[in-house]
């Protein structure tokens, strides 16, 4: 029983790390109806920028603020160069644009900062501590707290502020939003900036765990099953989906692994997502789409 609890809690906490990445996707999907392929690249870009600035002698807080500023600047540039020419175009065009953006960002990050794997130490001890006999990772708890905070802030922002409402409106219908005088450009800049900030946080946490390296942009693919489980349009869904994916992949590894030959952690979430698609394609918290025939 104790072992089960340990696996479960470990899984849930590592799931929070997936949630953090998924959150970035949800933000942009909510505001533009587009799956942002470049989110992974943004995570890599943000983490690399932070580490490299620190390497060059900036103090930690200076590096953090500078990377944040760079991510915000990046959001403005993306809005200006990539998104603005695509107003009123079908969502698929925007999707293609974000794929292109992925390559640009990955190239830019490694071109400017180099492609060597860099270590990142946030100064949070990664030693497990004992809660009534169950070992819990301190680092994971820290990550969970940060994710929880981000989610609460973003959820409130989307639900209760005018800009949040405008974001949801723009996601639903560009043309109608424009006719109401909602400034599409501002809305997009805000949301990409928020996604950039979330990417920075995710990049730092993932980077300190795995080292800042190219693989970061691939790990973010784990966010896909999270989104399918939680729903593409729900911030809360990103969290619950992350927890589900984290817990189930660890439990599956431990209990099904020996039977199936081990290493199933890597593909189990995708199978889970596939099964979920059959039963509830909009995800746990997603908006249900009813199309009139």
């Amino acid at each position, binding site marked *: 029983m104790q072992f089960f609890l340990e696996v479960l809690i470990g899984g849930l906490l590592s799931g929070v790390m997936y949630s953090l990445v998924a959150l970035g996707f949800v933000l942009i999907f909510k505001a533009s109806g587009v799956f942002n392929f470049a989110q992974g690249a943004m995570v890599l870009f943000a983490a690399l920028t932070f580490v490299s600035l620190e390497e060059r002698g900036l103090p930690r807080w200076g590096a953090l603020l500078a990377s944040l500023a760079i991510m915000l600047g990046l959001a403005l540039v993306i809005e200006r160069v990539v998104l603005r020419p695509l107003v009123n175009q079908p969502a698929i065009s925007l999707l293609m644009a974000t794929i292109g953006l992925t390559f640009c960002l990955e190239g830019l990050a490694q071109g400017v900062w180099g492609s060597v794997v860099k270590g990142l130490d946030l100064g949070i001890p990664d030693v497990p501590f004992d809660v009534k006999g169950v070992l819990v990772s301190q680092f994971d708890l820290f990550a969970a707290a940060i994710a929880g905070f981000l989610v609460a802030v973003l959820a*409130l*922002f989307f639900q*209760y*502020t*005018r*800009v*949040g*409402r*405008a974001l*949801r*409106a723009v*996601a*639903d*219908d560009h*043309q*109608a*939003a*424009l*006719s*109401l*005088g*909602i*400034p599409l450009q501002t809305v997009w800049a*805000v949301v990409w900036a928020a996604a950039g900030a979330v990417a920075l946080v995710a990049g730092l946490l993932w980077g300190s765990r795995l080292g800042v390296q190219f693989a970061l942009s691939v790990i973010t693919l784990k966010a896909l099953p999270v989104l399918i489980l939680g729903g593409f*349009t729900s911030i809360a869904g990103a969290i619950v989906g992350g927890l589900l994916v984290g817990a189930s992949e660890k439990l599956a590894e431990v209990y099904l692994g020996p039977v199936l030959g081990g290493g199933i952690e890597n593909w189990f979430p995708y199978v889970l997502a596939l099964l979920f698609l059959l039963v509830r394609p909009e995800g746990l918290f997603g*908006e249900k*789409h*009813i199309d009139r025939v």
Partner: protein
Amino acid sequence: MGHPRQKVGEVLLEVSGVSLSFGGVKALHQVSFQARERELCAIIGPNGAGKSSLLNIVNGVYQPSAGTISFAGVQRKSMSPREAALGGIARTFQNIALFKGMSVLDNIMTGRDAKMHSSLLAQALYWGPAQREEMEHRCHVEKLIDFLQIEHVRKTPVGRLPYGLQKRVELARALAAEPRLLLLDEPMAGMNVEEKQDMCRFILDVNDEFGTTILLIEHDMAVVMDLADRVVVLDYGRKIADGTPEEVRRNPEVIAAYLGVPTEADREAVAEGAG
């Protein structure tokens, strides 16, 4: 028939010599007309006559290739939809363009977006002025919800509402901006008789109570003749008539283009006349 009210004021919207082409297709050719303050003006014409294009030009979605538009005394060649919205032009769409995942209330609140000014930071903190502003606008929106009798669905996501109600919510969202000019693109398309009557009543009430100038595209001739103070008729992108419903109804060109479906005997008579 008609509403012979002594109510219209100054010219609010003047479209002069507007042309619009998409590639080689001329959607509009040298169209001019005026809408006066508090007037209920209908644009009619067969499918493809350029009615929606005309609305899209007034609202800034399309830029005319020639001609000018003056609204509230300001003349311009083109403007953006945002400028139009801030200037007091609101609209509804032919195919409902509501925010389907959002509640009725939130949909209507977005209509007031252009009227809200609190900064992003204040909103994020939901603090002081931002909160007060939100409350004030909410009050106004509740009045509109009352006015259009959609209290019972205010929290429902609009995607789940029946078609007739969705059209009503779209009207409410447009009204939320307190527009001076309201553009309605086929507000009654696809409705049953009862829904149409309701919508007619609402449109007249809006016109009467708020003094909103309304530019309306509609196919149902009975409705148009009943509602409109003035009717503009388009055919193949040209204006072929402009006047009171009575005048337009008697205009032979209009009858030929739109109203009358000539019988076999009519066609022979026309052919003889032409030959």
